């Protein structure tokens, strides 16, 4: 609860700051939401309402944008975000098998977060490293030529960090 209160307290200011960075221009909605997501890790309902209030864009439209684009998530994320590339080259190289292993080991589906808020599993459609497929990215770190065999040890490595 403490965290939520702090967040609400700073909410008005955070949104103001981010808006100012984008010239208080509602047309920069996608950028504004991206920056706010960088701050909060996701887009809580309060943030969307505050953005709507300050930009004077109807909440329904802010919500439309926040749910249309893959960049945004309305759910809290884990400490580590695991992105499995499912682009064509990675698929041909068997990334679906890597993804299945992550699903099995973590017990979640893409888009979900483990109950302990450690891992969020996502798929991404190509990160442009097709020569390295299958590619997995964990919190911005790229792993190339990942095989299903490695999945268990990768998760263990991060859990122990």
């Amino acid at each position, binding site marked *: 609860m403490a965290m939520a209160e702090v967040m609400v307290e700073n909410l008005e200011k955070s949104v103001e700051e981010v808006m100012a960075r984008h010239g208080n221009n509602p047309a920069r909605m996608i950028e504004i939401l991206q920056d706010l997501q960088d701050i909060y890790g996701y887009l809580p309902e309060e943030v969307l309402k505050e953005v709507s209030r300050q930009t004077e864009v109807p909440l329904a439209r802010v919500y439309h944008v926040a749910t249309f684009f893959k960049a945004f998530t309305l759910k809290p994320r884990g400490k580590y975000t695991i992105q499995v590339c499912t682009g064509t080259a990675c*698929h041909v*190289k068997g990334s679906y098998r890597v993804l299945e292993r992550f699903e099995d080991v973590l017990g979640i589906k893409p888009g979900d977060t483990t109950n302990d808020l450690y891992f969020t599993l996502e798929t991404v459609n190509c990160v442009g490293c097709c020569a390295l497929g299958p590619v997995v990215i964990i919190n911005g770190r790229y792993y190339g030529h990942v095989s299903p065999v490695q999945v268990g040890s990768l998760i263990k490595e991060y859990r122990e960090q």
Partner: protein
Amino acid sequence: MKRLRDRDDLERMRQEALSKRPERFISLGMGTASRAHGAEAVYETLKDEVTRRGMDVPVKATGDHGLCGYAPVMVIYPEGLLYHSAKPSDVSDILDALERDEVVDRLLYANPLTKETFTYEKDIPFYKKQMRLVMGLMESVESLSVEDYLCYGGFSALAKAMLDMEPQAIIQEVISSGLRGRGGAGFRTGWKWEDAANRSSPIKYIICNGDEGDPGAYMDRCLLEGLPFEVLEGMIIGAYAIGAHEGFVYVRKEYPLATHNVQEAIGVLKELCLLGNDILGSGFDFDIQVVRGGGAFVCGESSALIASVEGRVGEPRSKHVHATESGLWGRPTVLNNVETLANVPFIVDRGGEWFASIGTKESKGTKVFSLAGDIYNTGLVEVPMGITLREVVYDIGGGIQGGNAFKAVQTGGPSGGCLPDSQLGLPVDFDTLDAAGSMMGSGGMIIMDENTCMVDVARYFVKFLTEESCGKCVPCREGLKHMLEILNRITQGEGTMEDVDLLDELGYVVAHASLCGLGKSAPNPVLSTLRYFRDEYVEHVRDKKCRAGVCKALVRYEIDAQACTGCRVCFKACPVDAISGEPEEVHVIDQGKCIKCGICKDVCKFDAVKVV
């Protein structure tokens, strides 16, 4: 940095940069693909060690060199000596050899089949058949060094266009060059510019489309990361030609490094006043902003992209009115792909006629392809239009990995098609690929071997497009969903022959009735695989068989008693304890427990696990 007020200032800066240009330098590819392979650590070690030894050899951080599968790749100039897969621990050997005028043999490129090694980049077959134009400066120019870019002729086209040419003359040059959009549709760039230029609106926009959404295509990422100045130069020339004073570079959010480099490069150009008011004393004002995409494939479509720049959801609209008439905020807008713009400085510099001398009758110039999949040399290649698919796959790509048989080459991204061996003689150009049921697209080229199931590939693409369909028009939203359901049934062994015919029919409707390019081209992967690989569909339906061993419901894993040595590696690796057997005795898979994850096959050193 000093403000460049006119051509003299520019040329003075160029001369100064040239006087400092080193003869000897090390170029290290530092794009995303190279970084994923540990290039940053190599770069740091290399810089430290060069300083420690007091060597006068600058290390340039450039974009990816192209041979991405062998990253990090470094080239030592002026000889053009190429090392690949270098690690920080190799640095001292590399510098020792450089000081002694020797070569580190173990880091040289070796042909994977013949084992023949090559010392110099120019001799490697991967580079030999290429014609590097827009990628030509990738290795010599440090990504964010404007001095470097000037040394290799940077901004001379800009000065020529703005100070010696009328906008109409530039457009004529681009028309006569025959340049067509590299983003996929292949529309003639010159016509687009001419249409926008003729509009009387005082406000016009130019947008550089870097929303490279096609999985398997990454040439725009590489250009934005490695040669941002080249792309921006093309964009400024375009803006001048059509009379736009504001521009946007739209970059995918999945490309953080590209976004960063473009932003930095724009900052440098603003300091030099190559962006801003009165560029080079021409009286022309122009500014560029970077917009990060929100991660939606449909935003590669022009009207959807424009909507998302305006801060709305990326839904396309009917295009009876072109963006060149009413685009961003209702103003005439030109949208050009990254690679298209990167071609512009060359056309202005050397003339449209020169450009038109490269390529085929209707497709001029070069095209960058990203080669990926089951070939030896994966990476970015730039080839003249008209080269055959076979040359790209075998001569440049080095052929199929591991001695497997070729099955298909997939071009054009998710909305492209799969072409079989019989079509490999086709020349690469817009119209030929279209006629063959595929398309040029933005330049993804994925090579698939015999272990790829074509029904699964079609299902994969339709699944991707179903998820990415914005949902505005019914044929795309509902049609694709039904196609996906049918393909799911077939890959699960529950399809009927009527299903296969229905796919043909649905594909026809979706292609003809959808609103935008996404839906119109979405059935291509299904229609092209039905056309060239129909027997695989029939096998799935009639024989309940997946010859590639991909469709889980139709295969099972078994251990070959002849080959199994009882080493217990698979026993230990199986995540569900489905494998039993005593040490040094033949192991057995319990089919009831097996989840078909394939790990046993991955870990077996004796090739004893078979997919049947």
